[in-house]
């Protein structure tokens, strides 16, 4: 890394620490003020507000003295309820506070996702290089880290800015969060020290610990870097899930549980899993764009081969992580419904439901781009001619499923349009708008994508085992029966039985898809053991395929922004759902158009920063030639 980027990193760390210091100071010192000012009631009436919690008081009788109750039940008397800020308690800065926090939070999350994900697969690639002895893996892993290093600084800058913005613009809310999470904030801050330490020793120690036992030390550093990064992520997730589904507090927001009970809310693990997988897919997509950028900007065959391989690996990581993502999302939404049906319906049955159609378009874009890249990549080897005839069928399945997925259920129609249509739903396409049809489409698209991936992997190999035909027959049977089973489950239980069976059948559909993926991996691993390998020509891929690698991060970024908006909006007018109301001027779900503009702005901003990141990574490898001395009598 150059001196400039090191200085940027140091500055951003300083900014983050300063913000955390202000946050801790503000949060702990400001609590008394918050609770005296926010509720607008005296402390005695505060006690009355929380009195019904944990004791019974009969109407007309004298209130039971708090001390007596505490003595009998061993309760702590200092229960503090959530603040109730009025409109005037929110600073007015002339522009929407929510918009400011929205941009900063989203940028922090984008870069946070990137820098948490990249070290994860870098560690795996480095380990593969170590075990196989192939130095190309090591070089590529190091290059991935180089790209993301600037991202750590940018994450810290936006994280610090976000913390400052929140404390300035939402002081009561942040005061409450500081009170609820208490010393966890210090643990969070401490983890930054650890992550920074492991990051710099891991990156800068790469060449110093390259072989033998020292490589194990280096791999351990990478593991610890990931462990600290993941812990930071799950801690931060607990704040978001506490806001959506608070736990460890009573109905007025007073803390009644320990920190573990507060963190381990009903949505915590679904969010942890979903973000963990999504981050890897997102990270793979972004570094894939870097490889495409480098591939297109050079004519050197050796470099093109290197960046082609790098782009392939990135796409492999991105798509492989993306395959289970819809299932993790499904689990998250199921838990949202289980926690609060109202919240679930707000997300998928109300105003936000239309965004799931936009989500379908974006996921369709990702899958089509990912598949197109795999099909283009088949041209690297002559063995692919065996599988190319299948591509058109895969494309057909993908397009039909994509069209099914984007079919809306309830159309926004005028009275004359309803009359012309004969009702609010289209008589043929209407049934495609509900979940059973979507579930069929999603699962078939994932199976089709896995098939593309499998064919690509097979294209440079010829099986030599005697049971190859039987193995292929079994694989074909599994694909065909699984697809028929998914359609049967969706159609029969989705349209002809009750709702409970309809929802339950989606689990069996997911199971069928996973069986195909697992069976495909197992059978191919056994069948292509000691297989004859055909030559692959890295770098021999059409330039247009690289644009698919650009499409992936754009669609991923937009998708993350969109679904983040949905996740946050389901709280409606609450800072902390059912516990602390949002009384700010922005305490409403913004219109879809406004949200679309905001998400687009943030996406473009992120992509500009990513370009900056790529430029910095390039800059560090650029060396200015030494100026030639001017000799006497003219220019040398």
């Amino acid at each position, binding site marked *: 890394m150059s001196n400039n980027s090191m200085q940027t990193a140091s500055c951003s760390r300083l900014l983050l620490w300063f913000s955390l210091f202000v946050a801790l100071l503000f949060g702990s010192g400001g609590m008394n003020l918050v609770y005296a000012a926010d509720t607008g009631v005296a402390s005695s009436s505060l006690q009355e507000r929380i009195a019904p919690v944990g004791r019974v008081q009969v109407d007309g009788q004298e209130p039971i003295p708090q001390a007596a109750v505490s003595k009998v039940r061993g309760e702590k008397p200092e229960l503090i309820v959530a603040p109730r800020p009025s409109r005037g308690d929110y600073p007015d800065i002339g522009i929407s506070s929510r918009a400011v926090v929205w941009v900063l939070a989203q940028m922090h999350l984008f870069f946070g996702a990137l820098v948490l994900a990249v070290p994860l697969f870098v560690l795996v690639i480095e380990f593969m290089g170590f075990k196989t002895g192939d130095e190309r893996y090591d070089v590529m892993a190091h290059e991935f880290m180089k790209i993301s290093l600037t991202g750590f600084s940018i994450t810290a800058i936006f994280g610090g800015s976000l913390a400052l913005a929140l404390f300035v613009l939402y002081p009561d809310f942040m005061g409450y969060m500081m009170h609820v999470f208490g010393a966890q904030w210090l643990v969070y801050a401490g983890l930054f020290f650890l992550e920074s330490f492991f990051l710099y020793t891991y990156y800068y120690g790469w060449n110093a610990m390259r072989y033998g036992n020292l490589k194990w030390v280096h791999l351990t550093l990478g593991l610890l870097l990931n462990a600290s990064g993941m812990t930071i992520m799950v801690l931060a997730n607990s704040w978001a899930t506490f806001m959506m589904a608070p736990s460890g507090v009573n109905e007025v927001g007073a803390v009644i549980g320990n920190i573990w009970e507060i963190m381990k809310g009903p949505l915590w693990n679904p969010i942890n899993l979903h973000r963990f997988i999504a981050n890897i897919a997102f990270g793979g997509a972004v570094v894939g764009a870097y490889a495409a950028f480098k591939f297109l900007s050079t004519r050197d065959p050796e470099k093109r081969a290197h960046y082609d391989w790098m782009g392939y690996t990135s796409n492999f990581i991105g798509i492989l992580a993306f395959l289970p993502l819809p299932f993790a999302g499904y689990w998250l939404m199921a838990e949202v419904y289980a926690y609060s049906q109202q919240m679930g319906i707000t997300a998928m049955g109300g105003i936000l439901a239309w965004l799931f159609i936009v989500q379908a378009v974006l996921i369709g874009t990702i899958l089509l781009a990912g598949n197109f890249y795999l099909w283009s990549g088949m041209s690297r080897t002559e063995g692919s001619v*065996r*599988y190319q005839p299948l591509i058109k069928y895969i494309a057909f399945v993908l397009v039909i499923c994509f069209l099914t997925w984007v079919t809306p259920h309830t159309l926004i129609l005028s009275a004359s349009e309803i009359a012309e249509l004969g009702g609010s739903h289209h008589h043929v396409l209407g049934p495609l708008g509900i979940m059973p049809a979507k579930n069929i489409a999603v699962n078939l698209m994932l199976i089709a994508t896995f098939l593309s991936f499998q064919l690509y992997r*097979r294209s440079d190999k*010829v*099986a030599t085992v*005697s*049971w*190859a*035909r*039987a193995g*292929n*027959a*079994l*694989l*074909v*049977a*599994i694909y*065909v*029966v*699984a697809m028929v*089973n998914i359609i049967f*489950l969706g159609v*029969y*239980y989705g349209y002809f*039985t*009750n709702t*409970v*069976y309809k929802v*339950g*059948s989606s*689990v*069996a559909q997911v*199971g*069928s898809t996973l*069986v195909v993926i697992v069976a495909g991996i197992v059978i191919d691993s056994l069948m292509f053991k000691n297989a004859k390998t055909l030559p692959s020509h890295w770098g021999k891929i059409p330039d247009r395929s690289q644009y698919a690698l650009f499409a992936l991060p754009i669609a991923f970024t937009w998708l993350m922004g969109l679904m983040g908006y949905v996740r946050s909006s389901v709280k409606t007018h609450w800072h902390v759902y059912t516990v602390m109301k949002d009384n700010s001027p922005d305490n409403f779900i913004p219109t879809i158009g406004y949200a679309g503009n905001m998400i687009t702005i943030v996406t473009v901003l992120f992509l500009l920063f990513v370009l900056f990141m790529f430029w910095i990574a390039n800059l560090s490898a650029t060396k200015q030639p030494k100026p030639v001395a001017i000799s006497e009598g003219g220019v040398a």
Partner: protein
Amino acid sequence: MDNNNEMSTAATMLATVLAFVLALLAFYGLDHFFMSIQGLPLNLDLTPAG
């Protein structure tokens, strides 16, 4: 999917039929399994038993 002449055509046909029978049985069993673990039992003809 790959060209391999280790097996005769008849054997390949038999393997294909067996593979489909196996896959059908496996997915039939999986449907029962995935529904029953959710407390949603099925009859032998896959209609809801609950």
